[in-house]
Structures are given as structure tokens and as C-alpha cells.
């Protein structure tokens, strides 16, 4: 026992300094010098103001914008700090819904969202990502199909031609990485920033 104490303290101390301080701080230094934009969260600025992060989804609710997926993030209820309230796209509290596949809450939520979307877009089926919550609650992407589903609403709200919006979606659709990794996707913040430039109203 006793003979183990010196190596324990020496190596726990030495390796804590090395792996817990030198390693992360040196990397932080390198990253801040070499890639400050990415190392600080890939922030997007418009007119010198931070409007979000390229990698993080944000809540869009107005009819004039492309919307992201439903988000399951919650925050302490301002009225009752012991309870939690819905706070979609809270980027300081990532979380998924963790509802099981046979969960009544899941089925009822999806039923309501699906009915609303079907009525709005005039379609019989909706894309899977449009009515399901993401794992992080901060998914920055939607499927191209979900983006197209929103064209009718946005065209009406902004008085733009649907073809203009379709073209915008095509221009912002990213295919699978290397042709086969992941899924095709549209970054909602990018798309909405482009929309705002196109139609500053």
C-alpha cells in the first residue's frame, strides 16, 4: 500500500497537469490562432451583429421564414422555477424528447403537427423530419422535402413567386458528404439569411 502512494501522487498530479491543462490549453491556443472563426463557434454576423451560429439551429415561427424541425429543449419555467417549460432551440440546454416509439405523447404531438402541416401545404403526407424532434433539439438542418413543403406558405406571406423559393432551396441544398455519408440537407439559418437578402421586407 504505502509504496504505491508516491507513484500515485506523482503520476496523478503529473498527468493531470499534462492531460487536463497543458493538452486542452495548448490546443485552445493553436485553434484560436489558426482557426478563430471555427474555434469560437462558427458564429454568423450580419452588420456586425451576431445572429446565430452556422452549426446551431434557431427557432423560426413567423409565416415569412423557413422553419426548422420541432425542438424538445426545455428551460426552467419563468412562472414556476421548479417546473420546466418548452424553450425550442435553447442552445444552452441541448436535449432530445426521449419519447419511446409507442409513447402516447409522441403520437398525439405528431398527429397534431402533421394535421396542421397537411392543411397548410395541401398535401397527404409530410416528410419525417418535419414532425419529429431532433436528438440535440438544435438541429440546424431540414430535409429538402421539408423545405419545399414550406414554399406555399412563404410565397403567400412574402408575395414571392414559388419558383424563386424553389430555386433558393436548390441553391442551398447540400448533398451527402463524399457522396454517401449522411443525408441531403438544407441549413435553415443559411436559407433564411438568403431569403432576407432576397426580400428584405
Amino acid at each position, binding site marked *: 500500500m504505502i509504496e504505491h502512494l508516491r*507513484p500515485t501522487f506523482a503520476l496523478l498530479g503529473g498527468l493531470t497537469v499534462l492531460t487536463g*491543462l497543458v493538452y486542452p490549453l495548448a490546443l485552445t491556443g493553436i485553434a484560436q490562432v489558426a482557426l478563430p472563426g*471555427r474555434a469560437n463557434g462558427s458564429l454568423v454576423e450580419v452588420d456586425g451583429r451576431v445572429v446565430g451560429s452556422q452549426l446551431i439551429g434557431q*427557432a423560426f415561427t413567423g409565416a415569412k421564414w423557413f422553419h426548422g424541425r420541432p425542438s424538445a429543449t426545455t428551460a426552467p419555467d419563468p412562472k414556476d422555477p421548479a417546473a420546466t417549460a418548452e424553450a425550442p432551440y435553447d442552445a444552452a440546454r441541448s436535449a432530445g424528447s426521449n419519447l419511446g416509439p409507442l409513447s402516447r405523447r409522441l403520437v398525439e404531438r405528431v398527429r397534431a403537427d402533421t394535421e396542421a402541416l397537411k392543411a397548410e401545404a395541401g398535401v397527404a*403526407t409530410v416528410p419525417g423530419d418535419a414532425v419529429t424532434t431532433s436528438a440535440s433539439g438544435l438541429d440546424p438542418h431540414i430535409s429538402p422535402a421539408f423545405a419545399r413543403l414550406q414554399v406555399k406558405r412563404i410565397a403567400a406571406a412574402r408575395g414571392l413567386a414559388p419558383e424563386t423559393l424553389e430555386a433558393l432551396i436548390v441553391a442551398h441544398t447540400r448533398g451527402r458528404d463524399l457522396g454517401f455519408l449522411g443525408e441531403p440537407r438544407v441549413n435553415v439559418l443559411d436559407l433564411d439569411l438568403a431569403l432576407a437578402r432576397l426580400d428584405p421586407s
Partner: protein
Amino acid sequence: MTVFGWLQILFVAALVLATMVPLGRHMARVYAGERTVLSPVVGPLERALLALAGAGARRSQTWLGYTTAMLVFNAAGFALLYALLRLQGVLPLNPRGFDGVEPFLAFNTAISFVTNTNWQAYGGETTLSHFTQMAGLTVQNFLSAATGLALAAVMIRAFALSGTDRVGNFWVDLTRVTLHVLLPLSVGLALVFVACGLPQTLLGSVDATTLEGAKQTIALGPVGSQEAIKLLGTNGGGFFNANAAHPFENPTPITDAVEIWALLAISFALTHTFGRMVGDARQGWALAAVMAIVLGGCLLVAQGIEAGGNPLLTALGVDPSLGNMEGKEVRFGSAASALYAVATTGTSTGSVNSMHESFMPLGGLMPLLLIKLGEVAPGGVGSGLFGMLVIAILTVFIAGLMVGRTPEYLGKKIEAREMKLAMLAQLILPATILGFTAVAAMMPAALASLANAGPHGLTELLYAYASATGNNGSAFAGLAADTPWFDVTLGIAMFLGRFGYVVPVMAIAGSLIGKTRAAASVGTFPTHGPLFVGLVTAVILILGGLQFFPAFALGPIVEHLLIPTGQTF
């Protein structure tokens, strides 16, 4: 299954295969105490640390001395991490001003990281300061992984050496695997991650004003450095609550594939290290084949099931072509999510890029099954290999019973003492998982934490205790696990699953290393061919199946059978 699903599997398999031999060879040199390509860089550091540790820190130890050193070191690591968590409020690098962590949660988290489990009863960005993440969690990510790799060295030497009672020196092994393997790989991987968009900053958060004019607080931190070792060391505790589903931990499908490689790379490479050190590379390939078969089988089921979507939602007018998307990210889709889920539970990583709780019943059964098969396909760094070797010993014993010969593995006779110890180690897993789950299922305090009702609720409990005991750390994360009941019982399960398992395993190694290696004869059962691979696979599946099938039947299997009825809970 889609063609893209297949391509993704092949791509990751090719990456793992490409690094297996060079990495395995490098680790064999590290274990043997030889010079490596990194010696010019890390050699002086290695000598300085061992000099600091004293002269006694270089003499070869008996298995008991080695194991005691490991336990003392881990106990001190636990105490240090517990103290850092409790004192967080007065320590530096706490830009968001978090208080010290509550005692129960600190206990659970400290055990969790020391045992290489990295169960998240905490939410990273809502609980922990940067200092805790770096000097607390990142350190144990390294040290718990290094502990596993050191113990694997002993188990390999048990077969490679003979006629000695000395198994090596824990302090030397610990220092060498940290400096020659874990740290350099982490530095390289972290640089790749930062280049791909993972934050690496000391800022706590940034406030953005969204396009609709709302305020969005975006949590940040030194993510890249922690992500790298979290995967390479099969740890899995996320910087953020959503773990590697969070876009800052895993921003693109490319980082996703690299992450899956990182969590498989060392465990698979170790089979090659084993083969080289026992002087017959085929022995290592045979073990790797068993791991790949079990992992691949579970992967095909999980990808197939998740690609089909949720019939309950399809009936409402949801297009199933993207698969089951609840709890998954669009950039990964169902195929890459199932791939990550299987890889992270086949290893004892527990990092997630999707929420396993929202998988379809049989899709979610695959991660649970991989944990319960004992974390050997390919298992955690080090722990996967010595777990697989225990199963290989069981297999030659069973094969020996069938043909009436004294069982041997690599020329070492397997006798009553080794079998008793192997059974003791094997029984800890089911006894802990099923025992705690059974008790929790009757405790109102435990049931109040469930997020889902019906059979899914039972699976939630089962998954929690399996994940803790198997030192995995992934979760059916709806469970509100930060309660005194779960913090304490899951903490005990993690402790038993790690140290209750490794002490008998080290005793087996101590016993085997003293035996002479018998030369192979015509009557020797070959342990490198397809017959042995098939037998080991069967032993894994039968042992796991017999132990857990009744519990699976009440959880995911009955839930699956209920799908056509449309019943919800």
C-alpha cells in the same frame, strides 16, 4: 437498409481495418517497453514522470501488487475528481458561474469517469465549468482508458510469457500508454475536429440575436480536445447534454464517420497487438473476427429496423422514407445514427449521435444487447480485449468438455482455479444488472424517474443498469437519473462492473503467467480457425441470451409485438 447505409458501414470498416495493423504493432512496442516512433518527443517526459514516481515505480510487480497499485491510483483519481466537482464554484475557468456539484451527483459522476463509464446524470453545459471539464473529466478520460490498456497488457503477457510471477509494472504501463498512444492520437484527432468546426475556446457562451429578434444563448467551450479523448478512450461523456448529437460535438457526416472510427480503432487494434505478442498474428485475427461478426449482426438489424420508420407515425401521414427520425439529426439520418449507436455500445463508449430511447423497440434492443453481451465486440479500450480473452477461456473449457480433453488456450492449461475466477467475473454482470433492475422496478422512488410507461419503462430501467454495469454510459436518456436512488445505485453498479470484474480477471492472468506453454500437438484444438471463431461467437450469444432473454421479452420484444395493435402508453 439502403445502399448508402451499406457504403457507410464499408467506409468505417475500411478505416478501422487500415489502422489496425500499424496501431496494433505500435501498441505492442509500447507494452514491451521498446522505443517507438514517438520516443524522441515523449521519451524525456516519460523519464521525468517515472523519476518523479520514484525507483519503486519501475520494478515488475506480481498480479496482486499490480492490481493494488491500480486500485490505489483509481481511488485517488476518484477522490480528486469528487473534490473538483464539489469545489467547482470556487475554482477558476468557470465563465458561466456554476456552483459546486451536489454530493450525490458528484459521487455518481466521479465513479462514472473513473470506471470509464461516463454515464451522464449531469447536463454538461448546464452543470459543469470549463475547469471541471478539462482538469476533471478530460483527465479521467485519459486515465481510465490508460488503466484499461494497462490491464490488457497484463492479460496479454499472461499468454505471451511463462514461468514467472511478474506481470509488469502498472506505473510504467500507465505512463507509456498515455504518452505513446492516447495523448498523441488525441492531439491529432482534436486538430482535425477543430478544423471541422468543433469549438475550442475558453468562452462560456455567446449571445446571439436571432433573425426573428429573440435572444439565443449559445454555450461554448474547449469541446474539440475533450471530444477526441472521449472517443479514442471509449469514454463517452459529452461536453454537452446531447453528447455527439450536438452540432458542436459532431457537426458533419464526415466528423461522424471519423468519430465512429475513433471509438473502434484502439479496441480492434489491440487484437493485433495480442496476436503479435503471443507470436501468432492469426490468434488476434480470430478474436477480431468474432468481434466483427457480433457487431455486424447487430448493425444490420439496427439499420434495417430504423430505416423502416415508425408505423404508428406512418399511419398518421408521415412519410417513412427517411426512417424513424424522432431523436435523430437530419445530417446523419437513420443509417448513420444506427451505425453510431451500434459502434458506441459494441465498444463501451456510450457517446451518442441520436437518442437511443426513441429507437424502434428492436432497433433499441441492439445497443442494449451489445452492452449485455459483456462489452466485448470489440469492447472498451483494454477491457474489451481482456473480456474477450475470458470468453475465449470459457470457450476452450466448453470445447474441452465436449471432447474430454484438458482445455488449453495458446498452450496454457485452463484448470479449476482459472475457471472459477472466470465464472465469478462473468456472473457479476447479470447479477448486478438484473438484481438492481428488479429492485428498482418495485421502488416508487425509482419508478417516479421513468419518462415512458409500459414495456418501454422497464427497458429504460434495464438499459440504465446495463449501461452502468457494462461501463458503457449511453442511456435511454428520458430517465431522470439525477436522484439519490439512481446516483447511488448506478454508482455502485459502475464500481462492481469495473473493479468487481477486473480483480478476478487479474487473478486469472497471475495464475496463467506462471504456467509453462505446452507445445502444440495433433490433439491441440486450434484457436485461430473458423471453428473457434464460430464457437466463441456462439458462447457469447448463448451466455448473453440465456441471461437476459426473459428481461428482453418483457421489455423491447413485447413492445415490438404491440406495434400492430396501435396501442400507446
